[in-house]
């Protein structure tokens, strides 16, 4: 492969799913318009959504899902030792995701509620970075294929990798959307990392913060705004907890 006169090797890549819906992996197999070019950049060594071949020699491991079983811990550690670079992708891998709701209840209670008397091997939900070193995170529920493509291209060409540091409001305002606070809703847009193209708020659904906090957010000012507008704090806390993305800030408050 040639780019600006430099040749590049295909990236040997593996993609692995843990506790999740595999929606993020599915995203990577989506967007047919660019799929052939995307796959052309990659040497797929292990990716069950795309190929039935399975090899353990990969440079980059994409890891999807949260970690909720002892065998997952071991499998993740093996992947880490095989990979040169480990990328956590999707809100579950990066933050614990929706699965983390389980952590609010005693484990036995959750198991009983879902599986009855059946014996289930389970642990409290952890993010990938709680277990192994993560080199880069791509958040989102699901991840944006366009963003993953951009990051893969950056890796291949050796250029700078980054996510937007600013919050969703920028992209939302660029779409001329009405601010959902003006409609009496609590929206996490002002504190959530952009890059989603404000897809939820454009559909008039308040942001639930699946991409996690933007850089250097003003959490205090955000909570003040919710109380000053006399919006329900319970609703705010529920939204903040939805993907488990704002735990570090919430703990500061309590």
């Amino acid at each position, binding site marked *: *492969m*040639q*780019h*600006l*006169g430099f040749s*590049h090797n295909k990236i040997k890549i593996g993609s692995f799913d843990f506790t999740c819906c595999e929606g993020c992996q599915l995203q990577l197999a989506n967007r047919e318009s*660019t799929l052939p*070019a*995307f796959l*052309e*950049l990659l040497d797929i060594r292990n990716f069950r959504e795309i190929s039935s071949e399975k090899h353990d020699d990969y440079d980059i491991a994409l890891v999807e899902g949260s970690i909720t079983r002892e065998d997952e811990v071991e499998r993740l550690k093996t992947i880490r030792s095989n990979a040169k670079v480990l990328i956590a992708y999707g809100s579950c891998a990066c933050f614990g995701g929706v699965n983390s709701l389980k952590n609010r209840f005693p484990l036995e209670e959750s198991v009983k509620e879902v599986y009855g008397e059946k014996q289930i091997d389970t642990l409290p939900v952890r993010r990938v970075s709680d277990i192994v070193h993560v080199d880069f995170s791509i958040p989102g529920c699901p991840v944006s294929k366009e963003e993953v*493509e*951009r990051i893969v*291209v950056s890796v*291949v*060409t050796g*250029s700078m990798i980054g996510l937007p*540091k*600013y*919050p969703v*409001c*920028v992209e939302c*305002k*660029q779409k*001329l959307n*009405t*601010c959902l*606070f*003006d*409609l*009496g809703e609590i929206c996490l*847009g*002002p*504190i959530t990392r952009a890059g989603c193209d404000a897809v939820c708020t454009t559909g008039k659904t308040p942001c639930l913060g699946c991409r996690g906090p*933007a*850089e*250097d*957010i*003003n959490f*205090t*000012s*955000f909570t*003040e*705004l919710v109380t*000053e507008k006399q919006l329900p704090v319970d609703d705010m806390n529920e939204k903040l907890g939805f993907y488990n993305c704002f735990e570090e800030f919430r703990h500061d408050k309590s």
Partner: protein
Amino acid sequence: MIYKVIAKPEFEKFIDALVKANLSYGPQQVDTDKDGNPIYQFKEVKAVGDIAFDYTATASSAKHFLTPYRETLSHFTFANGDWEQDISYDSKPLVLIGLRPCDISAINILDDVLLNEHFPSPYYLARRKNTFIIGMDHLPLPDCFCKSLNHHTVTTGFNLFCSDIGDKYYLSINSSKAYNYLKEFDIADPTDEDDCKLIDRRKLIKQSFKTDVEVTGLPSFLDIEFDSPIWTKWGDKCLNCGTCAMVCPTCYCYNMEDRPDIDLKGSSRQKQLYSCNLVDFAEVAGGHNFRPKNGDRLKYRYYHHYLGFAENDNQPICVGCNRCGRACLADINPKDVINDLRMEKESCMICVSPSPDKT
């Protein structure tokens, strides 16, 4: 300038013909807020009935028609160890209807920045030359402060400006194109009575302002107050969300990025309007951030609007529309920040110490 009057039903016929023949944008109600107030934006209109002529103000300005939030400036193709750059300045003819004097003044300021300086932007030029602007006056909202900046009236920058004088519009025709369109319709020379009504209308608008922001001498005030604690005070409230700059009719700062195509055979150069309040606005290669603090970033937004441009180009770039103030979730608005700055100065103990008595 040519002055004419047109009866409102005839005006609607004129607008209808115009929008049916051209890609046109005008004010439309897009939502109703939680207190029951309508929210307007400039949206595409296909017939005169789509336009809310009685609108108050749009939540976002009209700047993105001339300098889009995001645009691809060029595309590079790599082949045989070389590259080619493909640039296109194509711009569809566009009609913008219902812009307020402050919106048109804002475009005049953008002209100064993007056209009238040493390096005119060909992208902006293509759009500007292909845009037909119809302005309309209005009674100010309680928080409009364009009069403080002398932008409650406008004399240039539009093709046609319409003042509401009851059952007619008083037209200020500023281009031959506008005059040629209007010739096909029933227009008349203004009578003495029409002139009087126009003067009354202007008086009424002028007297209806409820918000005044004192901008006299503001550049030096800002200079002196570089280390003022008020920047930290307002900075502590700021969410760094960039909303103010997105809705502002004159904020034109942008970020540029080169995005290689996924097949690595080309790359596109993309521009995105940015905001000096965003955390990485002043971040440079190597990761150093010249303005890591909210208060500093907020200060420099005010400096750009009321100090730098005022000193270099003899005018602030704020037009007083208060869109930023209305949109700010943290309740930061130019009136309160500027008044705070002056209040702080006026309550300073050194300044208010009494003069010695004459003996």
